[in-house]
């Protein structure tokens, strides 16, 4: 339900989504002067999947418009990365924490959705105790001094200063140092110096300055004026964007020198961070969320029908998609068109055998060239199409809906109340297209299914278990398709035809840029972001829609470099 728009919500706003949303048979005509083709659509109050034109007056892009920014709590991925970089801990304690609420595109770092619950607070406490206990087992590497020589108080205080600055990602305030010293002193008095250090780590790991990214450093020049971020805040914005973790030594040094106030220094750091392997993990995490790759893990199939599908296949599917996306973005072409048309994937011997293609002869994954008339790019990933399918058959509606929602950023509502929602029964003679024929005949269904089914049915050559098939029930498969109401309208044939449509669509490129906006800034776009979005779109286009360039461009916007001095909900 969270992925849908309805005409009512959008009111008088001019948008083709009104047309899309008409699912009850009474298809609304587009407003006068409006083309049925897509394109950036209106964002109502920060809705996630849309963005661009606004109902208010256009902004003056010569002025700075940062958009809203909230204190952002670390999500589970960021927490684990941060304690790894802070304490060397690789046990992923946050995997046990409650799952984040997802944004409409599936992203897990929307500041508004990162709420707090007693269970989470309890888990922070447990994780802090466990991490601190581990950390003090290696006191020598933890302390900047030897307490026996320097004296416990002096050494304790210098530990607090050094550790606190790393953990809080800025130098400590006097009251913070004082509070932490009292904790250390209590531990030292009741037990030992080591206990005191352990308790300081426990306190730091539960502090708001560690768990939240709060930006309060610089003061506005005038009341209400946008504020340039302080160097320390910029260091965190950079590291949490590219690495989803805390700043490293070089970033901290740059921040301490105050150099991150300059655009060229920010650009240099962005280039450095982008070249680090941690940036690959970040894009991997984005893909995981955007494409709902977590669903691979729970993939189940009816083995009466798909006898080759074994319990080890889902993990192989997941590895294939991970390696494909990682290679495409970082080592391959890296542009949006190639995401859909890349003529290769990655397999190991078992997966190649499952697909029935020639592949590597070991368990190691290696690049495999695809037969492009069968498979290409992201849509050629067996796991993705197996997830977008039923346990015993394909899922043309699921597939069409996914393409609309994730690639075109369009919303399809569910069927109206009272309608029987049931995939047609399996048939030994009829094709899937024939079985789903009711959707195109019944005017109640046709409104929405006309938008989904012709896309999904074009992918019928990949069965419900992700394998290629030339025939269904002994007959050749009709893979003709059509994409209505997009900027690439018209008919096409099969998976390669759909891949071409997606590759050539400007709407798809804008959609991916919106998803990245949301991921990079931890929020949905608002009317205030039109200048930032225009700049991003322009930079993305100029690069030939290369993702790596988009990542850099995301650090060059008002939204990234400034904050609003009027916070969400108003001043305290």
């Amino acid at each position: 339900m969270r992925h849908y728009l309805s005409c009512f919500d959008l009111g008088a706003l001019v948008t083709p989504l009104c047309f899309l949303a008409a699912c009850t048979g009474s298809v609304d005509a587009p407003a006068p002067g409006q083309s049925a083709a897509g394109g950036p659509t209106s964002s109502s109050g920060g809705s996630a999947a849309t963005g661009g034109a606004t109902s208010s007056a256009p902004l003056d892009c010569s002025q700075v418009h940062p958009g809203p920014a909230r204190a952002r709590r670390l999500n589970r991925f960021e927490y684990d990365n941060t304690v790894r970089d802070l304490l060397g801990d690789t046990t992923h304690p946050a995997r046990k924490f409650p799952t984040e609420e997802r944004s409409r595109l599936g992203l897990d770092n929307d500041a508004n959705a990162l709420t707090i619950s007693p269970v989470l607070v309890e888990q922070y406490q447990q994780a802090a105790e466990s991490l601190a206990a581990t950390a003090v087992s290696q006191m020598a590497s933890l302390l900047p001094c030897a307490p026996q020589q320097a004296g416990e108080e002096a050494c304790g205080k210098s530990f607090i200063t050094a550790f606190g600055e790393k953990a809080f990602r800025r130098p400590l305030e006097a009251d913070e140092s004082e509070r932490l010293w009292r904790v250390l002193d209590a531990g030292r008095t009741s037990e030992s110096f080591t206990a005191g250090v352990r308790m300081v780590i426990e306190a730091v790991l539960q502090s708001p300055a560690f768990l939240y990214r709060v930006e309060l450093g610089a003061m506005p020049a005038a009341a209400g004026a946008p504020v340039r971020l302080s160097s320390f805040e910029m260091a965190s914005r950079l590291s949490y964007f590219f690495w989803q973790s805390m700043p490293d030594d070089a970033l901290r040094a740059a921040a301490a020198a105050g150099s991150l106030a300059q655009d060229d220094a920010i650009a240099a750091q962005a280039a450095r961070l982008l070249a680090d392997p941690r940036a690959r993990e970040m894009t991997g995490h984005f893909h995981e969320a955007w494409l709902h790759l977590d669903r691979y893990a729970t993939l189940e199939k009816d083995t009466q029908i798909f006898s080759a599908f074994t319990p080890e296949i889902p993990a192989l599917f997941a590895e294939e998609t991970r390696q494909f996306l990682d290679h495409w973005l970082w080592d391959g072409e890296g542009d949006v068109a190639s995401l859909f048309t890349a003529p290769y994937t990655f397999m190991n011997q078992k997966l190649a055998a499952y697909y029935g293609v020639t592949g590597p002869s070991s368990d190691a994954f290696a690049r495999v060239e695809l037969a492009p008339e069968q498979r290409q790019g992201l849509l050629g990933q067996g796991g993705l199409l197996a997830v977008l399918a039923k346990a015993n058959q394909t899922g043309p509606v699921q597939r069409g809906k996914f393409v609309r929602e994730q690639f075109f950023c369009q919303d399809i509502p569910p069927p109206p109340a009272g309608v029987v929602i049931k995939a047609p029964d399996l048939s030994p003679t009829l094709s899937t297209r024939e079985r789903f024929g009711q959707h195109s005949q019944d005017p109640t269904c046709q409104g929405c299914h006309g938008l989904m089914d012709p896309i999904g049915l074009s992918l019928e050559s990949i069965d419900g278990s992700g394998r290629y098939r030339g025939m269904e029930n002994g007959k050749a498969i009709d893979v003709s398709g059509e994409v209505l109401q997009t900027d690439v309208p018209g008919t096409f044939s099969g998976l390669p035809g759909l891949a071409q449509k997606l590759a050539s669509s400007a709407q798809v490129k804008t959609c991916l840029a919106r998803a990245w906006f949301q991921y990079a800034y931890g929020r949905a776009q608002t009317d205030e972001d039109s200048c930032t979005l225009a700049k991003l779109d322009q930079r993305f286009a100029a690069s030939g829609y290369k993702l790596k360039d988009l990542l850099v461009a995301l650090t060059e916007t008002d939204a990234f470099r400034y904050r609003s001095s009027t916070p969400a909900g108003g001043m305290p």
Partner: protein
Amino acid sequence: MRRFRIPRRTLLRGAGGIAIGLPLLEIMADPQRARAAGATAPKRFVTFFSSAGTIHENWVPSGSETDFKLSRILTPLEPHRSKVVVVDGLTNFLGTPPPGDDHMRGIGTMLTATELLKGETRSGAPGFEPCGLAGGISLDQFIAESIGKTTKLKSLELGVQTGNVGDVTSYTSYAAANRPLPSENDPKAVYSRVFTDLPAAGGPQMADQAATRRLAQRKSVLDSVIESYGALAPKLGATDKATLEAHQTAIRELEMRLTATPETSSTAACAKPMAPTIDAQKNDNFPMVGQLQMDLLVMALACDLTRVATLQWEAAYSDVRFTWLGADRGHHTISHDGDNNSASVEMLTKINVWYAEQFAYFLQKLDAIKEGDGTLLDSCVVFWGNELARGNVHSHWPMPFVLAGSGGGALKTGRFLTYPKGDPTTSHTNLLVSMMNAVGVPGQTFGNPKYCTGPLNGL
């Protein structure tokens, strides 16, 4: 009615300064001792939620208030009929006002009785204003503010494949407006949260010196952390300030709990359960996960580790496939089928019979645990609620509510109550007030007073 109170001499003070009824369980396990001490069982409140409505004609009992025949769906409750109240005919009037759609309002207002907040969660059907989360504290949490203060856990939110998709459709319980309490869906995590520090039968009883010191250290740490939230929150904008204050409150409550010396001793009734292991998300594990959660919940109540709980089966819009009943489609999907689809009506009836069986299992386990002159069930008010009355028309009348347990004699059970449609005194909010009163929390209204006229007549 006899006033129940634990005499002072049975109270101890934990290191955090909160009172714990140390020997309460032991006393309660022995009716004679309990009578002699003038002690009685604490009151408990449990919500049992199932989704997508019911099939009313197969749900509603027939007969009079005290002489009635249980329906096909409620037949599994037959062994417990003297301890249940079937409440037919109430309306959730909050199911209608915007924002949100019927499912969203149904689940979000069931325990909060407050309109949803405006937001970004959109309905599929046209004509619904997008909504945020619920707009107020839920009844269970309001009750926990009163009766949950002395137990290890103020409340326990358990789920069975609730999805936790992150919008209003996932949650029944709220600490405040916009602050949902997500259900823990994994029995293993519930176990480790609730039971790991409970001594096994015959295990060490009392904290040694090192443990006492550890508690004091923990308190130093948490005091410092609480201060740091207090120092930062006032510098932030209103929205972030509210988040940090909520965080600070949660740490305060955690501190109270952690620094109380764990004193619960094993008795015949309270035995440390086994740690469960199960893939909690796998569709076909749904029944087993549910049973594990019920077992853990019963033991958490029996050991007096909490007195307030929600057990949420599925979420609004849930598409769990009841394959063990022969369903080939998801629950929500089937619930949309028309009344002329007899196979679907039959399947939905079966699903609700199945839920009644689960409810009966839960009641039977509670009733098997003796406390004083009664059972654990007697001290509870268990509320079985739903977000809808009927799935295919998305109605909020007549809500299929069932209560069990008497709240220590506060409710007269063994009854079937019917209420006339649409009257303001038949608002489901009135039932919330009555349940709250039954477990000892005073008040004449709950949630938005516009939808409440006071306690429910005739209950």
